[in-house]
C-alpha cells in the first residue's frame, strides 16, 4: 500500500475483505504488517473513494464537478495532449507522487517527448539518492540497508519511519535481540529513537558538523582503514592542484584516461587502479606536465583535521557536548577496528585476488529525511558516506550494504534526456545523472529549460526534479509555457505543497480574460483529496486491491542485500464504482496518442492493459518491467524473452520474485568479481568493472570550474558564486539556507515534522481506524522552553515564521532538542476533503506545518529568488524552517488557523442533468 511495498495476503469472505496479513515468505516484511497495512480494509471501503471520472463545472477549487464517462474523459485528455504534442511537448508537465510505476510514467513522458516530468524524490529525499549514487553507487534511500545480522553499532541519522519501514523495524528488533548498540541522532526522541540505546538530541541541520567532528577524531587517532581506502575508493587518486587552471581540482589522468596515483614502491605515477602498488595517501607530486597534484585523501585529511572540525568547536552549534562526540568516535573505532566480523567465506575481487574470508567493520549507518530535508543535506549525506569509507564500512559484514540491483556504476545512470526530433521521444529518460555542465538542461543564456528548473544551474544535480516547485513554477511561467499540469498520486495542493494557501491561490488564479494561469489540470487520484478540487479533469483510480501493480527493478526495487527482487500486485476486488486503474488509463492514453513503444507504426495500441505491458514490454532486449521468470520457459533470471505465463508464475510464487545471491556475492559487491559478472548477466548493470567509491566527488568540481569561467557552458553570472560555494568535491557544511536568511532573534526555534507510524501522509484520515489514533496533532516543545514561554500542555499557541502563523495546540516533552519544535506531518486536513464530516478534528484542530513554510527563500535585491531547496540537488528543504512560539491570548478560538473554507466535492450526475 505504501512505498515500503510489503507482501500481503488478502483473505476474502463472500467477495468481501475479511483479513489482510503479511506474507511470511516475502523478502521485505517477512509476515509483519504495519498499522496502515493492517487497516487496509478500511481504506478499501473508505467513503472518500472517487467513483467516476469528473469534469469541473464550478470555478477551480469550488469542488463542483459533473460526472462524465471514461470515454469522454479519455477524449478530453487525448485531444488536449495531442494538441500539446503537436506544438511543444514540453507544455505537458507530468508529476507523480509515490507511485510504484515511475518506470511507466517516466517512459510515457519520454515517449511523449516532454522534459517536464518528475516524481516523488524531489520533495522527498533526492539528497540521499544523489549523494549516495554520486559517492558509493548506492544510497541509504531504498538502495541500501544495514547488515542487521552482524552490526554491533548502528548509527541512525534522522529517521522517524522511512520507506523501508518494516525492514527497519525488523532490523532494529534483530539488533536489540543481539544486544548491539543503537545510537539515534535526531532532535526528537520518539519511535525508533525511543528504543535507541543512546539518543543524541542534535540541533536540526547540523549533522554534517557532527560527522566532521567524528571524522576529525578518527583521523586524529589514526583510526581509518587505509587498506580499504586504496583498494575500493578514490582516496589515492591524484587531484590536480593548479588554481586557475581549467583542470584544477579534477583527477589527474594519463593519456588513456586512466586516473593516476603515486606508487610509493616504484616511486612513480601509475594508473590508480593498477594492482600491487603502494599508493601514497599524503604528499604532493608533480605530474608529467609539471602541474602539482595531491591524493584526494590528503585534501580530506587536511580539511577535517582542522581545529574548526574538532568536537569542541562544533559542540554548541550541534547541541551535543564534545565529550559525547569523542566517546562516540571512540566507540566507532573500537567496534570497527577491535571487533571486526570475519566470515569464513572466500571471495574474489575484481583484481582477481582471492580472499579467504570476508572481513567487515560492524559499524552500520542509516540516514534519511532528517539529513535530506535540509538545504545542506546533499553534503551532509556525502559526509556520512565519507565516514563510512574511512572506516571501511561499505558493503562489508556488519556494515551498511547495497541492496541488489545496487551498486551501480557511479553516478548511477545516463544524463537526463534531451528532446530528440520534434514531436519525437527524448533521447533518454527525463530524469538522469548529469556528469558536468554539458549535461544540464539550460538554454544559451544558461537559463533553465525545465519547468521546475531541475538540471539547471539553480539545481544541477536535481536527479528527481523539484516536485515542490511544480505548481509555483507553472504559475510563474504562465499559459505560454505550460498548458497541462498532470498530477498523479500526489496531494500537491495540500500536504506536499510548501505553503498550501499560496499554492491553491496559484491554481485558481485567472487572468483578465478569465483564463486560468495554469490552463489545464488533470488529477489522477483514488480519493477525494484536497487537490482533486483543483482539477479540471479527474481520472479516478482504483484502490490498491483493485488493480495490477508492478514493483519493478526499473523503478524503485524491493531487492535486498541478499539479492534482487521484484513483485506484482494482483487485483483481488472488483471495483464497485466507475473507476479504472491509472496505469491502464495511461497506457490507453499513450496508445491513443500513438506514442512510440505504446503504439505500432500504424498507430494501433500495443498493449491492452498494464498487466499486458508488464509481461510484454521490453525496455532493452530481454529486459522488461519484471525480472523474474523470463524467457519462454520461465527460467530466465533478470534477462530473457517475454514469458506469456509470467504473471501466473509470480502468483504461484506469492506474487514476488527473488533471486538469492550465492554467499560468495553477498559482500564487497562494488569489487566482487562474481557479483559484478552475475549482475551484468542479469541485466542489472551494463559494465562489470570495479565500482570505485568516490571519496572525492569529481563531477562537482566540473560545475565549479564552469563557475570559474572554464568551458563553454557557464552559469549565469548571478549564480557563479553559488556554484563555487556549493560544488565542493569534498563535503562541506553551511547553515541551512532558509535559516541563514531568517532573523534568528525573531525566529529562534527550529521547526520540523515527523511521519507518524500509523498514518501515510494525507491518506490515513479517511481510514476509520487510523483516524482514531491520530485525528489531530500538536506542536511539541521541550518542557524547559515551554516553562520559559508560559505554555502548558494543550494550550493554544501561535507558531510564527517569516511566512505566516499557525494557531495550534502545544504539548510538552523532554525528549526533544531544546531549540526545536515539531509536529506530525500531514494530519491537518482541509474542510471538505476526504469525505469527513464538517466538524472533524482533522479540520478543526489538526494543522499542517506547511502553512508557514515557503517554497521560496527570502528575496534579496541583488539576486533572483531561489527556491527553498538544496542548491546541489533541488531537494525540498522542509526542515530548514525557523519559527517562534507564543501563547495565544485568552481570546483563543479553539480551532486551528489558517482554516481555508470548506470545498467538498459536489458531483452532478448525468441523470440529474436531463
Amino acid at each position: 500500500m505504501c512505498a515500503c511495498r510489503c507482501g500481503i495476503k488478502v483473505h476474502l469472505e463472500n467477495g468481501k475483505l475479511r483479513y489482510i496479513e503479511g506474507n511470511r515468505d516475502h523478502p521485505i516484511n517477512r509476515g509483519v504488517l504495519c498499522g496502515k497495512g493492517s487497516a487496509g480494509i478500511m481504506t478499501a471501503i473508505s467513503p472518500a473513494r472517487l467513483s467516476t471520472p469528473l469534469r469541473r463545472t464550478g470555478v477551480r477549487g469550488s469542488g463542483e464537478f459533473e460526472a462524465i464517462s471514461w470515454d469522454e474523459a479519455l477524449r478530453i485528455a487525448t485531444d488536449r495532449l495531442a494538441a500539446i504534442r503537436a506544438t511543444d511537448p514540453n507544455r505537458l508537465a507530468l508529476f507523480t507522487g509515490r507511485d510504484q510505476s515511475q518506470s511507466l510514467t517516466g517512459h510515457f513522458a519520454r515517449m511523449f517527448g516532454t522534459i517536464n516530468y518528475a516524481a516523488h524524490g524531489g520533495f522527498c529525499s533526492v539528497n540521499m539518492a544523489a549523494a549516495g549514487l554520486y559517492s558509493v553507487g548506492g544510497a541509504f534511500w531504498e538502495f541500501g540497508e544495514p547488515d542487521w545480522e552482524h552490526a554491533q553499532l548502528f548509527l541512525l541519522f534522522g529517521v522517524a519511519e522511512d520507506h523501508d519501514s518494516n525492514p527497519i523495524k525488523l532490523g532494529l528488533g534483530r539488533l536489540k535481540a543481539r544486544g548491539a548498540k543503537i545510537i539515534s541522532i535526531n532532535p526528537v526522541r520518539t519511535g525508533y529513537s525511543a528504543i535507541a540505546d543512546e539518543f543524541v538530541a542534535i540541533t536540526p541541520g547540523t549533522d554534517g558538523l557532527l560527522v566532521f567532528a567524528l571524522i576529525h577524531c578518527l583521523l586524529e587517532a589514526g583510526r581509518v582503514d587505509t587498506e580499504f581506502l586504496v583498494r575500493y575508493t578514490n582516496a589515492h587518486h591524484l587531484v590536480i592542484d593548479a588554481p586557475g587552471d581549467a583542470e584544477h581540482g579534477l583527477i589527474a589522468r594519463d593519456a588513456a584516461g586512466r586516473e593516476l596515483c603515486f606508487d610509493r614502491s616504484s616511486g612513480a605515477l601509475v594508473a590508480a587502479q593498477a594492482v600491487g602498488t603502494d599508493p601514497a595517501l599524503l604528499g604532493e607530486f608533480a605530474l608529467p606536465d609539471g602541474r602539482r597534484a595531491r591524493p584526494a585523501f590528503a585534501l580530506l585529511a587536511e580539511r577535517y583535521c582542522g581545529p574548526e572540525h574538532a568536537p569542541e568547536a562544533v559542540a554548541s552549534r550541534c547541541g551535543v557536548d564534545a565529550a559525547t562526540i569523542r566517546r562516540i568516535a571512540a566507540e566507532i573505532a573500537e567496534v570497527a577496528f577491535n571487533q571486526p566480523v570475519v566470515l569464513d567465506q572466500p571471495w574474489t575481487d575484481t583484481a582477481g585476488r582471492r580472499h579467504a574470508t570476508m572481513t567487515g567493520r560492524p559499524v552500520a549507518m542509516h540516514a534519511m529525511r532528517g539529513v535530506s530535508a535540509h538545504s545542506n543535506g546533499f553534503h551532509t549525506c556525502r559526509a556520512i558516506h565519507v565516514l563510512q569509507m574511512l572506516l571501511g564500512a561499505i558493503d562489508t559484514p556488519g556494515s551498511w550494504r547495497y541492496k541488489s540491483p545496487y551498486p551501480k556504476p557511479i553516478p548511477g545512470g545516463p544524463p537526463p534526456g534531451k528532446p530528440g526530433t520534434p514531436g519525437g521521444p527524448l533521447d533518454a529518460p527525463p530524469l538522469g545523472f548529469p556528469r558536468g555542465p554539458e549535461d544540464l538542461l539550460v538554454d544559451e543564456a544558461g537559463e533553465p529549460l525545465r519547468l521546475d528548473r531541475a538540471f539547471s544551474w539553480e539545481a544541477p544535480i536535481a536527479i528527481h526534479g523539484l516536485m515542490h516547485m511544480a505548481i509555483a513554477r507553472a504559475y510563474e511561467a504562465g499559459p505560454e509555457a505550460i498548458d497541462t499540469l498532470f498530477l498523479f498520486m500526489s496531494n500537491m495542493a495540500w500536504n506536499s505543497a510548501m505553503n498550501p494557501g499560496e499554492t491553491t491561490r496559484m491554481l485558481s488564479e485567472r487572468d483578465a480574460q478569465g483564463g486560468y494561469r495554469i490552463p489545464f489540470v488533470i488529477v489522477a487520484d483514488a480519493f477525494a483529496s484536497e487537490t482533486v478540487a483543483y482539477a479540471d479533469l479527474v481520472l479516478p483510480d482504483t484502490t490498491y486491491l483493485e488493480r495490477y501493480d508492478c514493483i519493478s527493478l526499473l523503478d524503485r526495487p524491493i531487492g535486498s542485500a541478499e539479492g534482487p527482487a521484484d513483485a506484482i500486485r494482483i487485483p483481488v476486488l472488483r471495483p464497485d464504482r466507475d473507476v479504472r486503474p491509472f496505469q491502464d488509463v495511461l497506457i490507453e492514453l499513450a496508445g491513443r496518442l500513438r506514442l512510440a513503444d505504446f503504439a505500432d507504426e500504424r498507430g494501433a495500441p500495443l498493449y491492452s492493459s498494464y498487466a499486458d505491458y508488464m509481461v510484454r514490454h521490453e525496455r532493452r532486449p530481454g529486459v522488461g518491467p519484471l525480472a523474474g521468470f523470463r524467457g519462454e520457459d520461465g527460467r530466465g533470471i533478470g534477462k530473457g524473452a517475454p514469458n506469456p505465463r509470467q504473471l501466473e508464475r509470480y502468483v504461484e510464487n506469492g506474487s514476488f520474485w527473488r533471486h538469492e545471491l550465492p554467499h560468495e556475492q553477498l559482500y564487497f559487491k562494488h569489487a566482487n568479481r562474481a557479483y559484478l559478472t552475475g549482475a551484468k548477466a542479469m541485466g542489472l548493470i551494463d559494465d562489470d568493472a570495479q565500482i570505485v567509491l568516490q571519496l572525492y566527488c569529481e563531477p562537482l568540481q566540473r560545475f565549479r570550474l564552469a563557475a570559474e569561467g572554464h568551458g563553454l557552458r557557464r552559469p549565469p553570472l548571478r549564480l557563479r558564486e553559488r556554484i563555487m560555494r556549493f560544488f565542493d568535491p569534498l563535503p562541506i557544511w553551511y547553515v541551512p539556507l532558509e535559516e541563514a536568511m531568517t532573523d534568528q532573534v525573531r525566529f529562534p526555534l527550529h521547526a520540523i515534522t515527523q511521519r507518524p507510524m500509523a498514518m501515510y501522509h494525507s491518506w490515513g484520515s479517511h481510514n476509520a481506524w487510523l483516524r482514531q489514533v491520530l485525528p489531530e496533532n500538536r506542536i511539541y516543545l521541550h518542557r524547559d522552553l515551554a516553562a520559559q514561554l508560559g505554555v502548558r500542555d494543550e494550550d493554544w499557541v501561535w507558531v510564527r515564521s517569516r511566512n505566516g502563523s499557525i494557531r495550534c495546540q502545544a504539548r510538552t516533552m523532554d525528549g526533544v532538542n531544546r531549540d526545536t519544535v515539531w509536529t506530525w506531518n500531514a494530519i491537518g486536513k482541509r474542510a471538505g476533503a476526504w469525505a469527513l464530516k464538517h466538524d472533524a478534528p482533522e479540520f478543526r484542530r489538526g494543522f499542517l506545518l506547511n502553512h508557514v513554510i515557503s517554497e521560496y527563500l527570502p528575496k534579496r535585491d541583488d539576486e533572483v529568488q531561489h527556491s527553498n531547496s538544496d542548491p546541489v540537488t533541488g531537494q525540498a528543504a522542509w526542515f530548514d524552517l525557523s519559527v517562534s512560539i507564543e501563547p495565544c491570548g485568552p481570546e483563543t478560538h479553539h480551532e486551528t488557523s489558517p482554516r481555508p473554507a470548506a470545498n467538498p466535492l459536489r458531483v452532478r450526475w448525468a441523470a440529474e442533468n436531463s
Partner: protein
Amino acid sequence: MKPAASVLLLTTSTGFGFGLLAWLGAYSALGLLPGHARILVVVGVATALLFASFGLGASMFHLERKERAWRAFSQWRSSWLSREGVAAVLTYPVAIAFAAVFWRDGQVIWTRLLGVAALVASLGTVYCTAMIYASLKPIRQWHNRHTAPDYLLYAVFSGAVLFATLHTMDLGAPGATASVAAAAAAGVALIAKRAYWRHIDTQTPLATLAAAIGLPKGVEARPLDAPHFTENFILRQMGFAVARRHAVKLRRMVLAIGFALPLACSILAGLALAPMATTTLAVACAGIGLLLERWLFFAEATHVSAVYYGRRI
C-alpha cells in the same frame, strides 16, 4: 468513576427500602410493635418493597442486555452482584410472609421470627450491594473497610427516617424510639461519612505510573501520548473526575442536607413538633442528601487504570 443515574437510584432507593424493612423486622423481633400496628407493618413492608423494587428496577437500566438479566443470579458463589440479586429476591417472600402473618396474627412468635428473617435478609442484601463496591480492588475509595459498614449505616439511617414517617402517619407520632433511632442513625451516619472522607483524603494512590508500566520504584514517568485522541470507554467510565472545588461544596451539602437536617428534624419530631412535617422533611432531605452522597461516592472514586492516561488516581 462516572456516576450513572441508574446505579445511584439503585443503591439509594434500595437503602431506603431495605432499611425500612430492617427496622420493621427489628421492631417486630424486639416486640416493640403494638399489636394493632397491622396497617403500619403492611404499609411499611409494601413501602419498603416499593422502594427496593424501584431501586432494583432502576438498576436494570444499567444493564445493556436487560433481557438476559436472569443470568445474573447464577454466580452467587463468587460474585457479589449475583449475591445481591439472590439476596434481594429472597428478601421478597420473607417480607411478604412477615407482613401477611402480621396482618393475620399481629404480634406473635412467628412474626417475631419473621421479623428477624426480614432484618437479616434486607441488611444482607444491602451488605451484598456494598460488597460489590468494596470488593473492587482497583478503586481505593471503595475497596476499604468503610464501604460495607457505611452502606449498612446509610440504609439503617434512611430506613429509620422513613420508618419514623410511617410511624407518624399511622400512629400520629413517630414515637420516642423511632425518633431517637432516626436521630442517632443520622448522627452516626454523619460521623461515618466524615470518617470515610478523611480516610480517602489521606490514602495514597494505589499505584504510580511507573508501577503501572512495570518500571522500578524511583523512576518517574509522565504520559507523552495517549493511544487515541478522543475519549474512549475506559476514560469515560474510569477517567471521570470531579473538580476538587466542586467536591468540597458537595460534601458540605451532603452533610447538611443528608445528615444534619434529618437529624434536626428527627429531634423535632421526637419532641412532637409538627411530627408529620418534620419526619417527611427528614425523608426528603435524606433522599436528596443520599443521592448526592452516592454521586460523590462515584465521582470521587478513582480507578487505577486511569493512571495509564496520566490521570489522578
